[in-house]
């Protein structure tokens, strides 16, 4: 080819590409021009760039879920979708009250070990093909527990049911404690009566799946059906483009009040900057990070009117390896605790996006003890206590491990290390470990100190104190063991009187705080911006179905 022609051809291709793209972009997004022209440049109006925005559609920025099979999901990002799409016997409302879901009512036997659930008779699958019966629960719960499934959550949440663990280990053909009385009646027998059972039953693992579509799928294979599951929750999944977007539509057969009002919910799960997308009217709700918090708090900032914060049921803490010197000495642990100014961490470093922690239980959780004093910030007492235990030299080689791979471990960790340096004269080294490695080190007690958070699975003190700090709990990373605490927690686990239970948990918490296997640091809050036309959206304190309360008014 002649070079002159080649050159002009190249230039032509370039120019043509630009022209074609621009023309098509203008033509294809042209539908939005009529409502875009009046907006005077303070952002393109909704409908400009995203296709088919319906008037009654909520657009959210969502996390990328791992797996939308309720029997398998162990992560909050998957659970957030599952609780909207699927449903089970019981659930929670926005005020954290346990409410009936598919089970309309239930009775318990005198010893509290047998639950008889009476199911609603008007619960249909999303495709309206069939109504839900007690057999669906038996199938779904047994499926989750089936050893073939390799579910990491089934044993954890269903272990109270009689025979569940025997079945999960492949030593029985069915779960002994689950009995179908008739289509509308399900009986569940427990190994031992516990008030926690119903809370655990609210977790997705016992939610209904459609026997006709799940086939041979397990938690690790052949999960294609989860891209378009037939379920029973307030919304149905209509489109799931992996890593791209999730679209839900209203379940018109939904059985609880209030029934969902939104016609459609679109989650954008590609990542990116949700705050910028919110400013650009591409999503209706966004979280607010540390970088933007100062701006939205400014009363002169228009976004300030759309700013809300809410409590979260979580706790961030430093854990000690209580079996390894010098951290086997409670005085050392207490000294490190006393040397940290938790008010400074929560209110200055985290800009008030957190509540300073005095104990383990977060505010908002039933059983939270506002009177708990905890271990107050006292640098002088901290120094004295450390000297008594052997002096700052004890902590010469101390290392705190944290998950992460950034340039720094974050402002909170940096501030903590600086406070320890300033108040105790000790140099504690931060080591970041990639998440997988971090978990393994924690699991194998291969650490001195670590920093981590814990988020409630259900709003109950047992979920914090027993799970994290009972000496026999698999999740007790610190290897903390106090027989007195164990006894209190065991007693609380079978106490049905709510006040007495809370009393027991508060006693246990107080002992734990003074023994200091943890330094409770703070309880994170959620902060969000919500567009003024979105009504009824409440930032949930933990994962629970909340979209059916939302309406759009514009």
């Amino acid at each position: 080819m002649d070079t002159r022609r080649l050159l002009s051809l190249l230039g032509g291709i370039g120019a043509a590409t630009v022209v074609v793209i621009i023309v098509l972009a203008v033509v294809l997004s042209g539908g939005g021009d009529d409502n875009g022209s009046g907006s005077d440049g303070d952002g393109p109006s909704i409908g400009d760039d995203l296709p088919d925005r319906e008037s009654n559609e909520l657009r959210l920025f969502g996390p990328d879920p791992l797996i939308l099979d309720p029997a398998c999901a162990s992560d909050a990002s998957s659970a957030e979708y599952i609780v909207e799409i699927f449903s089970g016997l019981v659930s929670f409302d926005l005020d954290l009250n346990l409410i009936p879901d598919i089970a309309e009512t239930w009775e318990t036997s005198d010893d509290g070990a047998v639950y008889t659930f009476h199911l609603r008779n008007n619960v249909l699958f999303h495709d309206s093909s069939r109504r839900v019966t007690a057999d669906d629960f038996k199938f779904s719960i047994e499926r989750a527990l089936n050893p073939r499934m390799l579910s990491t959550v089934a044993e954890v949440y269903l272990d109270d049911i009689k025979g569940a663990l025997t079945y999960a280990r492949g030593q029985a053909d069915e779960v002994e404690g689950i009995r179908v009385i008739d289509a509308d009646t399900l009986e569940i027998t427990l190994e031992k009566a516990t008030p926690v059972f119903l809370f655990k039953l609210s977790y997705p693992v016992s939610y209904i799946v459609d026997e006709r579509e799940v086939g041979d799928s397990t938690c690790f294979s052949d999960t294609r059906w989860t891209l378009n599951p037939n379920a029973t929750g307030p919304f149905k999944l209509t489109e799931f483009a992996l890593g791209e977007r999730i679209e839900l539509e209203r379940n018109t057969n939904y059985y609880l009040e209030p029934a969902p009002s939104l016609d459609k919910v679109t989650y954008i799960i590609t990542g990116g900057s949700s705050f910028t997308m919110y400013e650009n009217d591409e999503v209706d709700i966004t979280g607010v990070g540390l970088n933007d918090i100062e701006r939205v708090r400014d009363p002169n900032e228009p976004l300030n009117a759309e700013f809300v914060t809410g409590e979260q049921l979580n706790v961030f803490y430093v854990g000690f390896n209580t079996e390894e010197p010098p951290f086997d000495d409670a005085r050392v642990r207490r000294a490190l605790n006393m040397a940290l100014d938790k008010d400074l961490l929560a209110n200055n470093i985290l800009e008030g996006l957190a509540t300073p922690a005095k104990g383990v239980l977060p505010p908002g959780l039933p059983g939270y003890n506002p009177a708990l004093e905890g271990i107050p910030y006292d640098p002088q007492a901290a120094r004295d206590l450390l000297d008594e235990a052997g002096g700052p030299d004890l902590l010469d080689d101390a290392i705190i491990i944290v998950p992460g791979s950034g340039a720094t471990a974050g402002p909170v960790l940096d501030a903590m290390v600086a406070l320890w340096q300033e108040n105790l004269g000790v140099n504690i080294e931060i080591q970041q470990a990639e998440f997988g490695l971090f978990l393994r080190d924690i699991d194998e007690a291969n650490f001195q100190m670590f920093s981590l958070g814990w988020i409630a699975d259900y709003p109950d003190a047992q979920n914090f104190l027993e799970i994290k700090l009972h000496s026999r709990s698999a999740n007790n990373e610190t290897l903390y063991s106090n027989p007195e605490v164990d006894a209190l927690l065991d007693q609380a686990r079978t106490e049905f009187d709510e006040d007495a239970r809370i009393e027991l948990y508060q006693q246990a918490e107080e002992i734990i705080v003074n023994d200091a296997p943890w330094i409770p640091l703070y309880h994170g809050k959620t902060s969000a911006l919500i567009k003024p036309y979105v009504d009824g959206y409440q930032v949930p304190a933990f994962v629970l179905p909340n979209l059916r309360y939302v309406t759009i008014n514009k």
Partner: protein
Amino acid sequence: MQGIAGYVIRRLLLAPLILLFISVVTFSLGRWAPGDYVDIQAGPRASDELKDRIKEERGLNDPVYEQYFRYMANIFQGDLGQSVKYRGQDVEDVIFPRIWVTLQYNVIVLILTFSIGIPLGTWAALKRGTWMDPLSIGTFLFFASIPVVVSIPLLQWLFAVKLSWLPSGGWNVHEFWGIEIGIFSREAILPILILTLPGIAGIARYMRSQVLEVLDQDFIRTARAKGLHESAVVTRHVTRNAMLPVATIMGFELAALTAGSLFVERFLGIPGIGQFAFETIGSRDYDSLMAIVLLGSAIFIMTNLIVDIAYGFIDPRIRLAGGAGAETT
């Protein structure tokens, strides 16, 4: 022509060996990284016995070479495995939509980069000695030296937040004959712009220096001496000779684009393969990672081969020499 055919065949035969080598290295590196997906995904509440049983069932406790042979046996049966990042979804369902997204905007970027960069570089070279020379080279240098991690938030702020001309990110598709195409939406403009600007500058700068070098050659002086019109000298002799090395960097440009795509996709929230490739490492999504690396390597090898063959058409000397000249690349 025979020479080229032989050369192509030799290169094609070598490709599977290279891919095999890459597969061994990638696979072992992946498995030797501490922790596996069961550790990462099981959550803090799963017991050690349970985690161990899952690893056993999933074959993670087998020796690495056994896992490798099992994986390769599946590959040869056309089974790419199942993802872990998207648990239990087929790898092809996970990666192909993403490759399609990345491919679309990168093809546009490549077309624009070369078709604007080459004429621009030639023009700049011909203006040597005027005030436009330092101006153009300065501009090229400026754009070529801005890292994408800087240009992304800058352009995002300018076009999305300040001017409200473009969406701040995301990916939007229109359907043509059942195929989802995303490059005709306003979401595509920002990523294309971000990757094209430094690309054009790089190519133009390179082209400029090549043209200048060719201009000093004897045969150009000869061409001028024999009375050829200046425009004919430039188009017929200068540009054609200068483009040869530029074709070489096509392959490198592709690699640079892949790297650029990673950042662009992460910052702008584009569901492409660059972002996903990064995520597969953290989530120990072994099968997806392998598929991406192997496919990527295959594409890279093929591109380089095509570039080498294209040499023959741009430079007649290589065709005559039976490809010997091209093997130096």
